[in-house]
């Protein structure tokens, strides 16, 4: 399985999903078509969770880390990105039994709505380990 590397653009964040289990989404999220833009991201993470249960025939046998950390540092995002993050966290929640998952929600400490968005995720995903990480400007 390959690492996922998507460079930042004016409207989309930098995404680095490393098979060592270090994942990050950083920047702004205003894609023209959010679900299309994040399709490879959703595909990658679903495959990651699934890959150990598949026959090893078609995939390299290097074992993947059971420990995942996702750093999310989204300065600005539109509502469909927000919807997509819920979908992404749904996938994490479905796999929380078999993986040790930590999500760091990094936000600018002056940005109240960014903190509240993080709180919403915590409320909706009681069983996920979501940490709010305020950053000083």
């Amino acid at each position: 399985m390959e690492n996922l590397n998507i460079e930042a653009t004016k409207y989309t964040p930098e995404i680095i999903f490393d098979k060592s289990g270090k994942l990050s989404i950083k920047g702004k999220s205003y894609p023209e078509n959010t679900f299309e833009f994040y399709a490879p991201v959703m595909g990658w993470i679903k495959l990651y969770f699934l890959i150990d249960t598949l026959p090893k025939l078609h995939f390299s046998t290097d074992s993947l880390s059971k420990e995942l950390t996702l750093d999310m540092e989204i300065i600005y995002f539109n509502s469909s990105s927000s919807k997509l993050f819920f979908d992404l966290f749904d996938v994490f929640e479905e796999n929380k039994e078999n993986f040790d998952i930590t999500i760091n929600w990094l936000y600018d400490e002056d940005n109240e709505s960014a903190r509240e968005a993080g709180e919403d995720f915590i409320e909706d995903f009681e069983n996920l380990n979501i940490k709010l990480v305020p950053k000083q400007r």
Partner: protein
Amino acid sequence: MKIDINPMIIELENLKNEFSKTTNKLIKNIDRQDKIMFRSDKRQQYEYDHLQDRLAEVERLELAQKELMDSFIILIAGAIDAKSKYTGGHCERVPELAMALAQAANDCNEGIFANFELKTEDDIRELKIASWLHDCGKVTTPEYVVDKATKLETIYNRIHEIRTRFEVIYRDFQIIALERKLQGENAADVESWLNIELQKLQDDFQVVAKANLGAEFMQKEDQEKIKIIAQREWIRHFDCSIGLAFEERERVKKDNTQTPNIEQLLSDKQSHIQPREHFDYEDYEARGFKMPVPEHLYNFGEVYNLTQNRGTLTPEERFKINEHITMTIKMLETLPFPSNLKNVPIYAGMHHETMIGTGYPRKLTIDDMPIPARIMAIADVFEALTASDRPYKDPKTLSDSIKILSSMVEKQHIDGDIFSLFLSSGVYKKYSDKFLKPEQIDRVDVTKYI
């Protein structure tokens, strides 16, 4: 037949569970959707506020930058005015005059002014900056040239003067010795000869002293007189190449430095000429400057200076003075003015041009000069004429100044339309009331000029 309802109940139970699970998920999704919209609106507001803050910040910085730039401009203008007491508050007053004229041109809708308009604040700012900086090149003009008040004034190494005093004392001793030797001679004869020669010497000095002032135009015969006086001889007994700084010593070495040596009373020596070095002729031409460049940087020759027929300046010094405008242009053309100020070098750099291509540095004509540039030219002259803070000249009265401007209009050195506007708009009056001394403001009939 007995029907086993248990599997059906289990099936129903399962269906019920499935249904409530789906319902829950649906409700959760609806809740989520609401949350997403609510948060999204809030974030948008935050982003909007943030953008507004940034915009306000940018505007503040823009203003601060403008203020800083204006302060720099005033600082430069102040430095020029402070550099020479002879230019006084010139750089400060020219903007006042130029802006008042521009305003009058703006208000006037006739003739050449019909289409002239200073539309925006930037247009006004552009002209203001240009008028503040119109002489900025003067920071590069040596004071001794700007301030040169007599022909013989220069940066002077007084070793020469002291050496001369030595020479004088030297002669005094000789004279006393001779007098003693001559004691046997007829005293009255010697006395009358001496008186005649001393009187001649006095007269000659009067001629030289008067020529030195440069106050009157020198006729050819005046120049010849200087050349004859110059031929008086004296014998130098001291080495004129010692006690000098390196540069001057190198120049003086070209002269005859032997002792004793018969010298002329006044002379043009090789050492009086300072060569022109490092002059970028290519750049000068590329920028369209057309003033003829004198071969030498300076010529300090005594006869050469004393026989200049007009004013105190040699052609070399005149060029050095006029270079202030090429320096102004070079400096301003080098600055990265934003597009809303791109005309600053144009407005600032044309105030010594005339309407018919006889001005400097580019020999432009009226067609090359936008109205603000022509305004600058009149403002520059009128301020210079009426200024009462130049030690080398008396301030002109209002009527004399206007008369001179009108003769300049006749010769097409300045723009007649702007001159008329200057008078008809009353700008001349307002400026005079503010900056001229009461005794300068005399009656002037402007109607005969309009």
